[in-house]
């Protein structure tokens, strides 16, 4: 696995995958995609980088502990639900705001915030599992 070709290509591949995962996350509201699948793609990017560069390197690049990232995801998903308190509507009600940026209209919503939470929760959990498995492999 640890060939020169793979090690050279891996960073480019990882960058593309992470950008693509964010794209998938953002289009997910009305089209195929969303936080879960986006998080999975991002986690596979991290796993690939782990195989190419070693787990130590990935942990340094991630800055945060993967489990903490998952916790952050759950936390902001909960926050997305609590926001509806200020509008006197039930928990988890979708709230929308439209921003006019130039000619286009950007829809911001609590479902999007929730989905970002799902993205981080999936990313963190799967990345933690993948890195732990790769670490085992390296230890042998």
């Amino acid at each position, binding site marked *: 696995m640890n060939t020169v070709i793979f090690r050279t290509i891996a960073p480019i591949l990882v960058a593309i995958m992470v950008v693509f995962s964010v794209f998938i996350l953002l289009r997910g*509201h*009305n089209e195929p995609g969303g936080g879960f699948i986006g998080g999975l793609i991002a986690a596979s990017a991290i796993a690939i980088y782990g195989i190419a560069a070693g787990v130590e390197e990935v942990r340094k690049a991630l800055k945060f*502990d993967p*489990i*903490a990232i*998952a*916790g*952050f*995801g*759950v*936390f902001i998903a*909960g*926050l997305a*639900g*609590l926001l*509806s*308190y200020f*509008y*006197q*509507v*039930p*928990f*988890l*009600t*979708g*709230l*929308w*705001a*439209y921003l006019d940026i130039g000619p286009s209209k950007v829809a911001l919503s609590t*479902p999007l915030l*929730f*989905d970002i939470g799902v993205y981080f929760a999936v990313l963190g959990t799967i990345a933690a599992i993948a890195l732990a498995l790769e670490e085992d492999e390296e230890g042998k």
Partner: protein
Amino acid sequence: MAADKTNIVENNELPVAMIDVATSFADWLIILPTTIALMGAALLIMLRFNKAIQAGLAILIVIGIIILEIRLFLNVMEFGTQSMTMGKWLPPFGISFTVDVISIGFALAGAIVTLAVLIYAQADISSREVKYGFHSLVLLLLAGVTGAFMTGDLFNLYVWFEVMLIASFGLIIMGGRKIQLDGAIKYGFLNFLATTFFLISLGLIYGLFGTLNMADISQVSAQAPIGPLTAIGALLLLAFGMKGAAFPVNAWLPASYHTPHPAVSALFGGLLTKVGAYALLRSLLLIMPSARDFLDPVITFLAIATLILAPLGALAQTNLRRAIGFLLIGGVGSVLVGLGVPTIRGVAGASIYIFHSMLTISALYLMAGLIERIMGTQDTRKMGGLYSASSWLSILFLVLVFAVAGLPPFLGFWPKLLLIEASLSQGDVWLVVALVLNSLLTTIAGTRLWAHIFWRAGPIGENSEQQNKKLKPLTLREKYLCVTPTTILVLFIVFFGLKPAMIFDAGRMAAYGLLDKSEYVEVTGLADPTKEKVE
């Protein structure tokens, strides 16, 4: 999260309503305990390398939850059942959280037990386990338990079961000893099996009724064909019976609950099996009573078998925490009695019993942890002489034994009295015999433990007359952190035993709530039975 074009906020206006009543803070009390526990678990796992603040933050969060739940409890006692349906979708499409007396009563007891366990655990767990997220897992378990008690949707109940399962896997292997892995496999396999049976029955329920909202099903279950309905009821009885450790699917409990830290044992004993027992009451009394009527002989048989066999198991045990596990199972038998005689008294008895068992069993496990700490072993044959070392502990233990056996004046006596009255009025003499026999056998098993641990001077064998020299006295820190929460739990048991009026009121309201579904259905927002069912 499907988009709904009518549900759009522009210029900060309120959206066109699906539910058009404004949601007040009182409604938010329904969802806040679960949400705060879940978000607290997430926050603590984010800060898991910051070991110093973990315990304090976790305890603060649980205290906050207890305060909110007391408010909610008072609201429910005053204004009746409360409900909130998520995301403004009308039920049965939105997930409902519907809180009646039984829900909030158990949730409150669960939070109090969790607080006691968190304080106790500070002397029990290592700093390495704090880093592995002990406090976060405890809060996650509390979130799962609270959610399971409060949800008004069967599939949502399944989700909370999964949340509990994840948290409990983490907690049961914390420490990483070989015996814990052994216990975790037995615990995990059977609980997975139980949740799978539950999931299968959910599929059948959705196929039969086209809905998973509890209030919605309860309206139509009486007209359903009895064959499939009974099959579903039997599957649920198996699944929740396994979760609650009723005979004959109880073997996993004594085989696994003695392996983790005593604090974790207390948490599991106080919360997990009770959720199974609660789900039994909720599903077979409120949601599909006709299935219960059909299964009545089976339930009666299971109740009698559980009541009598469990304390016999406790008598045969020489491992302290395994013996307590069997006493816990005996209590599940009492709950099954309430399920077998669905009168106000019977169901109130079962509800109060669950409440009592949450406090008592947790306190017993915490007590066992203290005894093991002093004795340095789990084996009662090697114990002895604790009475002269600590008379206070011996009093606490004896009170707990009497409470779990159902002797007056402690809390355990009142639910048993109600259950016996209910069984007599229904003419179920065998249930009465089993209940009384259970109390007798539990007293024998419990006092036998007491005699071996406290009364006998030294370990079994030649030296049993000489004072045990191997006792390791508690440090001051252990006294504060471990004895205090145990004592407070015991004081609760004594207090409610001496002043049972409040408990009786709550129990009666809980029983009305389960036996008469009209309020539950109305509050959820599904009152009109002529309403056309979609799907």
